[in-house]
């Protein structure tokens, strides 16, 4: 059983608190659904050969009930940028899904 109710999570994910509006498309097709995500795009130094490469590591946290069929190659559009889901970390206890994104 999740620690938080759907209403609890809705407060966290609201766009006037931590959330950002996003469009989620299963398989990257169709009109998709409007959801709220907590989006982070931290700076990372990507391991290269002798030299590292500067980049970002985009991650979107969603309510699990908003993306019940989350799968690789789904897309999330945030502020006009289309990200592809490359990793899925479900957290049933909290009731969220953490999506690792690529562009």
């Amino acid at each position: 059983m999740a620690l938080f109710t759907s209403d609890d999570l809705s407060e966290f994910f609201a766009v006037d608190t931590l959330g950002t509006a996003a469009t989620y498309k299963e398989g990257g097709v169709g009109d998709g659904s409007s959801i709220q995500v907590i989006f982070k795009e931290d700076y990372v130094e990507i391991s290269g050969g002798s030299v590292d490469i500067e980049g970002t590591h985009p991650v979107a946290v969603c309510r699990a009930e908003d993306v019940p069929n989350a799968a690789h190659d789904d897309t999330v559009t945030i502020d006009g940028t289309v990200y592809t889901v490359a990793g899925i970390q479900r957290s049933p206890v909290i009731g969220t899904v953490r999506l690792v994104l690529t562009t």
Partner: protein
Amino acid sequence: MSHVRQQIREAIATAVTGLTTTGSNVHQSRVWNFEAGDLPCLSVFTNSETAETVNLGETMSRIMQVAVEGYVRQAADTDDTMDTVASEVEVAMASDQTFGGLARASELSGTEIAYSTEGERVVGVVTLTYQVQYYTASNAPDTAL
């Protein structure tokens, strides 16, 4: 004058400049991070060398390891692009294996390919290692024999 090692490194950088995929994005002994927009690119390193004396100590026979690293960042088909980069480098390096007479010979001794998915796009690095043999006088490392 500069050490023959430096002259060869610079000659190699010149040889691999202007290739179709990496263009003028060629660096020598790069140590600072690349920005995403810097890729695709090449960086030439001369990290190690073995040497021995010949002719009663008057001549140094040297074999230098040269690494030409190709960096690629893209959403898909990173492997194909790295192989293309490798192909272009190999052709350029084979066009003059003495680098204008600085070396006696050079040959590809190995290729390594690595991927990283830590960021928003796959980064691939292909490393071509060459062995370059050259000679200098023991007391004149700036002049190739």
